[in-house]
């Protein structure tokens, strides 16, 4: 298998060069500190920019589904400045302090949610050599870090001392914990196929074909289960019971205002992106280009597209799929959500895991 293109993508030489240049003018400790700072700023910036892009995309996509135009006034024809304007608005809004809330937990909850989101965000494989948090159990770390968000949601609902938020929090606690099972098992399925938990390694292993093609039937099933469970994890329709505007006004974040509310809102969109990003990584080859065996010319052209474009393209494709679902389906009820998970998705994902194991053991995967 010709894997020359992997080097073409690699940005390790650039990062090494930056590191060496810095080391030549300052002690290594300071250089690493400065690099970490720069990476941190880049992560936060990307986080904010992606949120703006996602919100704009959501507005335009749902407008298209609903026979509307969507934002079209602020910032020229396409309403491009609508979301930045909203961001500025939310930044300048007053943060309301509740009298009878548990002050510490009430203030802490949005930070927990955003922390979980940023931690998982940092694990995404953006490009060859562009992993930010890299460890050999990366995917396990993603699962663990994303669970902190549930704690934030539960605390937010409980500490607000309101009945609506309480119901929203309990709902979301029950739902997220349930759906983590399916996510965990489908991720395990792909770990089984790849033979590693290292995110970068999982992507490398897909150089000769994306996992969804390599694992064929069990992989496709796992992909579908992952999308459903991931949608639930991201708290989006038809699983948006935790907020359920029509029932609980805004669910767990009813009592939040200003940027504290903004954190929840931001985390919700970024969780959508992260869910899609992990799906793209596990099933659609991460930053790997699309190769069709036999078509060398086609493959060569595909190789010229940089990895980050591949990654973002695949992720936004999955994001679009999830938005499509959200804007088509009505909301499920809590007992139906739990029934779906415990009676159908979880057993099914276990079966898929067994099939995948059998396939790998008997060499039935490509």
């Amino acid at each position, binding site marked *: 298998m010709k894997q020359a293109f992997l080097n073409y993508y690699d940005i390790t030489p650039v990062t090494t060069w930056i590191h060496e240049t810095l080391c030549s003018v300052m002690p290594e400790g300071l250089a690493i500190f400065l690099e970490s700072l720069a990476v941190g700023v880049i992560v936060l910036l990307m986080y904010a920019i992606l949120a703006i892009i996602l919100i704009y995309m959501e507005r335009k996509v749902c407008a298209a589904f609903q026979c509307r135009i969507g934002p079209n006034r602020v910032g020229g024809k396409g309403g491009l400045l609508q979301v930045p304007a909203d961001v500025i608005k939310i930044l300048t809004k007053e943060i309301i302090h509740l009298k009878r809330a548990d002050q510490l937990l009430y203030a802490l909850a949005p930070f927990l949610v955003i922390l979980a989101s940023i931690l998982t965000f940092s694990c995404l494989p953006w490009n060859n050599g562009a992993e930010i948090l890299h460890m050999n159990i990366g995917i396990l770390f993603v699962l663990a870090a994303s669970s902190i968000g549930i704690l934030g949601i539960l605390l937010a609902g409980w500490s607000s001392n309101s009945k609506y938020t309480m119901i929203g929090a309990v709902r979301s606690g029950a739902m997220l914990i349930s759906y983590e099972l399916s996510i965990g098992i489908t991720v395990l399925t792909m770990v089984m196929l790849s033979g590693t938990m290292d995110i970068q390694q999982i992507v490398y292993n897909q150089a000769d074909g994306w996992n969804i093609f390599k694992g064929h039937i069990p992989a496709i099933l796992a992909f579908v289960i992952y999308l459903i469970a991931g949608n639930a994890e991201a708290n989006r329709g038809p699983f948006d019971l935790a907020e359920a505007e*029509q029932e609980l006004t805004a669910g767990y974040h009813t009592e939040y205002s200003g940027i504290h509310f903004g954190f929840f809102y931001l985390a919700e969109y970024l969780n959508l992106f992260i869910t899609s990003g992990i799906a793209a990584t596990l099933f659609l080859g991460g930053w790997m280009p699309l190769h069709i065996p036999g078509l060398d010319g086609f493959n060569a052209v595909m190789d010229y597209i940089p990895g980050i474009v591949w990654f973002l393209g695949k992720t936004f494709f999955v994001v679009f799929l999830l938005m499509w679902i959200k804007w088509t*389906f009505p909301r*499920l*009820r809590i007992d139906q959500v739990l029934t779906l998970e415990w009676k159908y998705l979880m057993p099914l994902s276990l079966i898929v895991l067994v099939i995948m194991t059998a396939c790998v053991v008997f060499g039935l995967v490509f």
Partner: protein
Amino acid sequence: MDIKEKISAIYPDASFSEQGDLLAIIPAEHFREVAEKLRYDNEDPMDYLRDIVGMDWGESLGTIYYLESSRSYNRIALKTFTTDRDNAYLPSVCDLWKTAEIKEREVFDFFGIRFLGNPDMRRLYLRENWIGFPLRKDYDMNSNPLDMENEENADITDEYYLNPDGTIADKKNIIFNQKDFVVNIGPQHPSTHGVLRMRTSLDGETINKIDPICGYIHRGIEKMNESLTYPQTLALTDRLDYLSAHQNRHALCMCIEKAAGIEISERAQYIRTIMDELQRIDSHLLFYSCLVMDMGGLTPFFYGFREREMILDIFEETTGGRLIQNYNMIGGVQADIHPTFQNKVKAFIKHLRSVIKDYHDIFTDNVIAINRLKGIGILSKEDAISLGTTGGTGRASGWSNDVRKHHPYALYDKVDFKEIVYNEGDSFARYMVRMDEIMESCHIIEQLIDNIPEGEFKVKTKPILRIPEGTYSSAVESSRGEFGVFLESKGDKVPYRLHYRSTGLPLVHAMDTVCRGNKIADLIAIGGSLDFVIPDIDR
């Protein structure tokens, strides 16, 4: 057997008044007996209590009960009264007709008549600390200055009952215990379709009890009517159920025309019928939109509004109004139809028939929608009749109650249409009734739109009407049930009392029965499928 003979057989001293409606006058001490016998009559039980109208005749306070049979559709009105104004007590009929539970509260609220045996004698619309009873004729309008204090809702209510020795005692009934987890759904809530408040006691996600609190937009329309001339009263009907504005006004115009003996032209009848049906389509499209939105589906919401907009445009061209049209007048309609009216209506119906499939594709056939609606919130036929849930809600439970069929008015006896009846009684049936009715309304309009006869659209009437003394009533099938107008005239230029049958009040009252044991998410879906409009409840 004639209804008059039947009442005379039960109570020989009953007297009858036929000024306007046929009214059987029965003293309070014999009233229960007559009511019970009529209710449980073997061949023709009067099992549907259309409305209870409280009345202050000066020397006596009393109520008029409008009854109807769900088998023969015969109607009768019973009148009973008490002369003791300070301690006004009448027997309750809430064990015969469940809808009386809430309607007696309304009468108590406005007239101070306490009903013996009604388990809940709180005020319905006004504040609990309100002084006096506003619809009594001797009510002092200055007795309740604006109160800016917060209103605490009592968890305990009074029940008055008659001891065997003839004395009246009261006991306390508990609405919510200290331990109940009571959530306020409303008054500011996205899915109550207005300022309704439902105190909901929950066990986890399951509903234990719902206590609707009405009156947040009570405007005292019935009291206002007592000082308005007849043409002036028309303006307020559009503001009751704003999604049945035409039909409400149609009912009042019909009642006044009947009482004053005004014949309206054929052309006006055609226009009124077409407008009523357009209004019904408009309302049902909004119903579709709101139901799907209540269930979290935001996309179909826009479908409904897209088509509804076309109806509003048609309304606007002819009447000048979109939501509130002020179109029906005593003696006809305000203005002739716009020259393009017929073409636009025809084009609209053609368009609607072509897009209605999208509605069903995106929502009706959706697996989540079916799971959320089928078998949920079942209202039995007996309960539907007893609770007086007319309109689509009743028809979904198998109760054929279409006023257009059973008591035809305007042109409904000349057009061919089916009454949509489903037997399941669940949310899905309630939804399907409305969706099918859209198509039936299109069918009705198609029969009329090309045949509108030439002629006057309005007959000349005197600006100040005097209506002969008597009790009059009329009813139309509004978008969400039977809308009734009950008029008592003393021969003046203003009504002595004008009461409207709210289509939504029985629906809100039915929420408790329908929702118990279901999940809180179902409460919203059931509320959406019952389809109530709050201004019409609060009046």
